[in-house]
């Protein structure tokens, strides 16, 4: 039951003046440099709009007041969304309330049943054909509804709404892009109450946000040509700088995956020219160079990335409008555009250096990284925590491996000791361990794999320093711990949640093999071939697929002149090499890979060749 008598027109003017003043205040807040002042002004304007809306909605809905009321509703929603940086359920309710007010004037509300927003929009747009003066405000509200639905992925509802708005009966409702493009909101009248953002502005924002979302989605699911066209569309639209950088980076990723590295490079350079967020394009560039095999350029981009991330750029204050950024999906660590934190980038750089054989650089970078993580008294840097990634002990171990590789064994020992001392409280009590050993109890303490690995690396460092005795004792200690650990051990509380990475069966086997071979090699160096033979034999049993173990065994057997066994082993090796190589892409931890590379027999091709001759010749005779 609506009263069609408009409230006193002077009252209407008063409200309108209030609205205009609040909008101007919000715009002043927008331009204010001081972010605190800005936030307070915006909060005050928001509160003012809320009050104004309450007083407007306290009266029965009337057609002459409705355009103003809807404008205030829109301003309120826009300001609230931009202050809280996101849409919530409240905004949906605000929109719904606005629509119900329109229907109230038409007496079409009927019994207040639970009606979906879609149905409400249908009835309102139908009713609005009778009330042309409401159209501009309704289009603006529809723009906000579209933004809400876009940000919550209700694309079907969005398409249907736009279809109704455009008045097009035919055409598939699926082609959202087309609907967005054809939507032309009526021009605002010059004497209308002030608005924060008009419907055309909203349309442009929606267009860019939609195409970029679409492109990113297609890129993630691997539908590259579609992604490319959507991203192109996004780049050609009205696009604020930071978003443009993202779009160009996504284009770079897309083109790299499509095998167009040169074109990808062009976009990445554009992106780098674009703005202050340099992280994602730099990371993408490093991936691109890695694909091209240009290691120097790859490492250079990574170095730049570390530098770029060290600057905590004070993010520009967001506009008090509905912006493209608000409508983009939440940043996700799995997204191709995620570049992580500085320490994560530093870790990537260090490990790439180690992998590409630049041990000195790697060692330096690892030391920098550890300093960054451990010495900062203030928590400014996060550990390379991205999943799946190494946990802190592994970072220590990689650093030690890099130092040994770079010939800095003493430093490596220091790093290992630091690791053990820091974690000492978590390690099982060793005295207890020996006591129980004597008692022969079966309860053995569980020791995380990384502790054994630390002893392995310590042994390797001693090897490099020429201290055989220490080396052998470290290797033995490592083996002692390793044979207690079984891979299916449920790790106790002391384990970190990313231990899974180094807990796999394969890693345990390879670690055992590496420790046995390392100790064997030390025995060989001390001339104790029988002891060496024992270790090599065990390592072959432990890890039959490990060729290195077999070759060391072969060499020792030959040295001991145990020809028959050597021949048998050689035949087995031959048969193994002839077999189709099994897929051996288990991803071992980087420190283990590095360690395994040290104990690889250097001349194993020539050795096998020699053996072939020595084995085959007597047979030919």
């Amino acid at each position, binding site marked *: 039951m609506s009263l069609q008598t408009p409230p006193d027109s002077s009252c209407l003017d008063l409200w309108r003046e209030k609205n205009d003043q609040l909008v101007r205040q919000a715009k002043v807040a927008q331009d204010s440099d001081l972010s*605190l002042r800005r936030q307070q002004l915006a909060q005050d304007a928001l509160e003012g709009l809320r009050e104004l809306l309450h007083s407007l909605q306290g009266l029965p809905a009337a057609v002459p007041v409705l355009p103003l009321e809807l404008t205030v509703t829109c301003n309120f929603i826009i300001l609230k969304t931009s202050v809280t940086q996101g849409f919530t359920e409240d905004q949906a309710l605000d929109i719904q309330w606005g629509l119900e007010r329109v229907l109230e004037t038409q007496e079409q509300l009927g019994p207040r049943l639970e009606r979906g927003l879609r149905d409400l929009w249908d009835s309102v747009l139908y009713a609005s054909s009778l009330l042309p003066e409401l159209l501009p405000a309704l289009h603006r509200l529809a723009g906000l509804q579209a933004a809400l639905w876009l940000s919550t992925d209700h694309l079907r509802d969005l398409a249907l709404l736009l279809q109704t708005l455009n008045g097009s009966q035919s055409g598939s409702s699926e082609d959202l892009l087309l609907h967005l493009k054809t939507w032309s909101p009526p021009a605002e009248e010059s004497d209308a109450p002030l608005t924060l953002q008009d419907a055309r502005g909203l349309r442009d924002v929606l267009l860019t946000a939609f195409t970029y979302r679409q492109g990113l989605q297609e890129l993630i699911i691997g539908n590259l040509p579609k992604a490319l066209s959507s991203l192109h569309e996004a780049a050609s639209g009205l696009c604020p700088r930071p978003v443009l950088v993202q779009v160009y980076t996504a284009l770079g990723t897309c083109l790299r995956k499509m095998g167009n590295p040169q074109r990808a490079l062009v976009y990445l350079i554009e992106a780098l020219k674009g703005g202050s967020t340099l992280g994602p394009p730099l990371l993408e560039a490093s991936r691109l160079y890695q694909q091209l095999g240009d290691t120097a350029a790859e490492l250079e981009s990574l170095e730049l990335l570390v530098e770029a991330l060290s600057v905590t750029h004070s993010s520009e204050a967001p506009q008090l409008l509905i912006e493209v950024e608000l409508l983009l999906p939440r940043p996700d660590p799995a997204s191709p555009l995620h570049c992580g934190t500085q320490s994560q980038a530093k870790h990537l750089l260090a490990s790439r250096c180690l992998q590409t054989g630049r041990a000195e650089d790697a060692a330096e970078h690892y030391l920098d990284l550890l300093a960054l993580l451990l010495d900062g008294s203030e*928590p400014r840097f996060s550990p390379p925590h*991205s999943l799946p990634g190494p946990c802190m002990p592994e970072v220590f171990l990689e650093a030690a491996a890099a130092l040994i590789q770079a010939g800095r064994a003493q430093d490596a020992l220091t790093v290992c000791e630091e690791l053990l001392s820091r974690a000492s409280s978590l390690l099982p009590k060793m005295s207890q361990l020996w006591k129980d050993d004597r008692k022969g109890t079966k309860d053995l*303490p569980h020791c995380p794999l990384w502790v054994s690995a630390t002893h392995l690396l310590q042994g390797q460092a001693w090897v490099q320093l020429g201290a055989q005795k220490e080396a052998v004792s470290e290797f033995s200690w490592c083996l002692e711990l390793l044979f207690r650990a079984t891979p299916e051990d449920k790790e106790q509380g002391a384990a970190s949640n990313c231990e899974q990475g180094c807990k796999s069966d394969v890693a345990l086997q390879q670690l055992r093999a590496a420790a046995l071979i390392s100790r064997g090699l030390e025995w060989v160096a001390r001339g104790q071939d029988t002891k060496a033979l024992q270790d090599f034999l065990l390592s072959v049993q432990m890890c039959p697929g490990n060729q290195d173990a077999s070759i060391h065994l072969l060499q020792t057997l030959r040295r001991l002149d145990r020809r028959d066994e050597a021949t048998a082993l050689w035949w087995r090796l031959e048969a193994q090499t002839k077999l189709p190589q099994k897929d051996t892409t288990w991803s071992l931890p980087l420190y283990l890979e590095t360690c395994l590379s040290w104990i690889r027999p250097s001349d194993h091709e020539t050795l096998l060749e020699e053996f072939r001759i020595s084995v085959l010749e007597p047979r030919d005779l």
Partner: protein
Amino acid sequence: MAGAAPRVQYLAGLCCPLGGLASGKPRVLCHEAEAFLSTGSELVYVYDLEGGLLTAAYRFPGQVWYLELLAPRRALYVLCARKGIYCLSLDHLSRRSTSQDDGDSEDGELPSSVIPVGPDACVLPDASLCAFTVLDGTLVTLVQGPTQWKMQLFECPCPGGDPQPGGQIGEVELSTYTPPAGVPGKPADPRFLPVLCCMSPPASRAPHRHLWGSGSFTLKEALFGLLFGVDATLLESPVILCGLPDGQLCSVVLKALVTSRSAPGDPKALIKILHHLEEPVIFMGALKTEPKAEEAAEETLPGEDVHFDCLVALGHYGRMLAIKASWDKAGNLVPELREYCLPGPVLCAACGGGGRVYHSTPSDLCMVDLARGSAPLDPTQPEEGPGGLPPLLCPASLSACSVVTLSVSSRAPEGGTELLALSAKGRLMTCSLDLNSEAPGLSVVSRANTGQKIKELLSGIGTVSERVSFLKKAVDQRNKALTSLNEAMNVSCALLSSREGPKPISCTTTTAWSRLQMQDMLTATCLLENRSAFRLGQGWTLCVQVLTSSSALDLDSAGSATTYTIPVDQLSPGSQREVTLPLGPGENGTFDLPVTVSCTLFYSLREVVGRALAPSDSFEDPFLDEDPPNVLPEQEGICLPLSRHTVDLLQSLRFPSLAPPCTQAPPLRSPADPVDTFLEACWEPGREPGSQPVGPASLRAAYLPPSVACIKVSAELLRAALEDSCSGVPLCCATLQWLLAENAAVDVVRARALSSIQGVAPDGADIHLIVREVAVTDLCPAGPIQVVEIQVESSSLADVCRAHHAVIGRMQTMVTQQAAQGSSPPDLRVQYLRQIHANHETLLREVQALRDRLCMEDEASSCTTAQRLLQVYKQLRNPSLVLL
């Protein structure tokens, strides 16, 4: 230790709202010789402990929810509800402090100057902030998002410095939660706020004093590593512990929380859920329970690097969790976790020296001791490795009730502890505990000490009197509840035992028409009469349920029920109460007759007993609105049905023709009868010259003959039934009087001896009731039998149906009564009855067929079908059958 004699001393009285302070939001902090207090209002007070007076009061723009002090920067951080975090410099405070008259006065006077805090002191405006904690360089906040808790990390803004808020350096979303129901846009105040607490590893190279604050603890390595994992240990990173109102306890490694602004952290990698208390977490802290180390700790100054070895968390209903690290037989580090039940509801708590936890309930302030020495030692326990937690805790009372916030003072006297507490009445007090109670010297009281002693005794009396007044009130309430329960029992027994005869408490329902708000309303009046010897007191409610039948025209719609509850309040024996309720027309102007009105008496146990039994209830009552746990039986009350009354068409008929002309109501026919409008439109005088003018009435008669239904009843049967009322009156008139017995018009009908009457149905249609005697010949072999025929005639088919239904209903009741008295029907001609029965069967079958056809046919042919259906119905309503 239970023998420790607590000494309570009142320091000051603060303004407190009516009903006392609620728990959860008031805070007391003490630093050196100053204490900072907030009562949950907009004010923060500064109290000088040495001078014994309030030195300043600050007025913030909103309610103060939390305080924290960052000592090295000499800054006080204050969380204002729905405003944000404000920061005050302490140097600034001391400059402003003004001298003040006697602070011991308990009149709640403010210091002469209340200093307003302006928006320029705001360092982090955010309306949805619920908790925070400060570390030296960073500010950790908890924000209530629309669906989730969000933890955010900021560079610490300093007071009076750069007004720019420190940049956000990290963010992660915690668990889901259900937002409290409130008006959209105006969220309700949360009843429980989340609790934040910072735990750091001992080896941390950062200076420790920066972690000063009520929410920071340094844990022993083993416990720290066990709880928070190897990464946190290696990084030596502080960990933020978070206790949520839903009972979750989770931890976030602070160094790992640093993320870029563009990407919030991955909750799976960052958040570790430690435990679920299943009740709102109100306190978290750490204790030192190792006895050997305890001595060492007491030697060091409090606040110095004490490494705690036990983590405790306390829930609102008294569930306490304690976690320690220990080694199993094999030498593995394993957590030892124990849950205790303390008396609840807990208002606040604090951790003291040693293994002591102080916690306050509305009725007492208690202390429990988790230290190893407090429980009998197990001699078989291996000497290395931390000792176990005690299996049971015995709370020791400290004799102070309703303390809403508590803090362990840093100025502890030797060998004792001093607690600074704020009671629900706004009194600030210190509670000194001499823990070495066996210390001699009590007997030797010097003269100089006597004055002090007397003062102490007096303030002890003050505490006791506060406690007594509270307990007395609780007892009174219980007595009242018991009296009320006893009365309720008597009433229930009286009502339930009187199966025959009039009930001692009755409710009669009558209907009448009245004119309300320009509209005629049918109202029902329920008269509750108490003829019993007992009083209906507080807790009783009269529930009247009005149940409408489903509309006859719409088979699918179910009837609607409206329940009115009217508190009886006080109804003494012999008195009565009248309640009038509208029955119709409903919002759409229709009547859905018949309507059933049932009256029930309800006694609410929750209202009467719940309040008295809930242990939490007290004058400071922050808990009135909550369910007392487990003290109430399953059902919420007692329900006693009183009466049930059906209002049908015959009761709601009106007879304008009978009314005296002067008081005759305006024509009741609803103005917009569509049929009439149509007929009127059809009838245009002069359109057909020559033909006599035809009114709508005659048109209606011609085209829409009134629907008719009739019921025949054997006169003998009726006469027997109406024996007492029909003496001297013709049977027809008696029958009509009987039918309209519950109508207001019955007197007129009786006075004029009418046998037919023209009335108006509630929806405005005319209804004609005609009663006449006829003879039926071919039914009985013994000759014709006298029969009363009741004919219902109306232009509205629906009303005919309703009236027919009402008449049949009365007949049914009458026949059942007569059958009980054993009257025998006369001989009948069975053949004839069979014939009638067969006829009806065919008619019913035809109805079924027609209805089926109606569903399938198109419009044109369905019209004829519908007409045929109407005819058949008419035949059915006019049976040749007689009720005998």
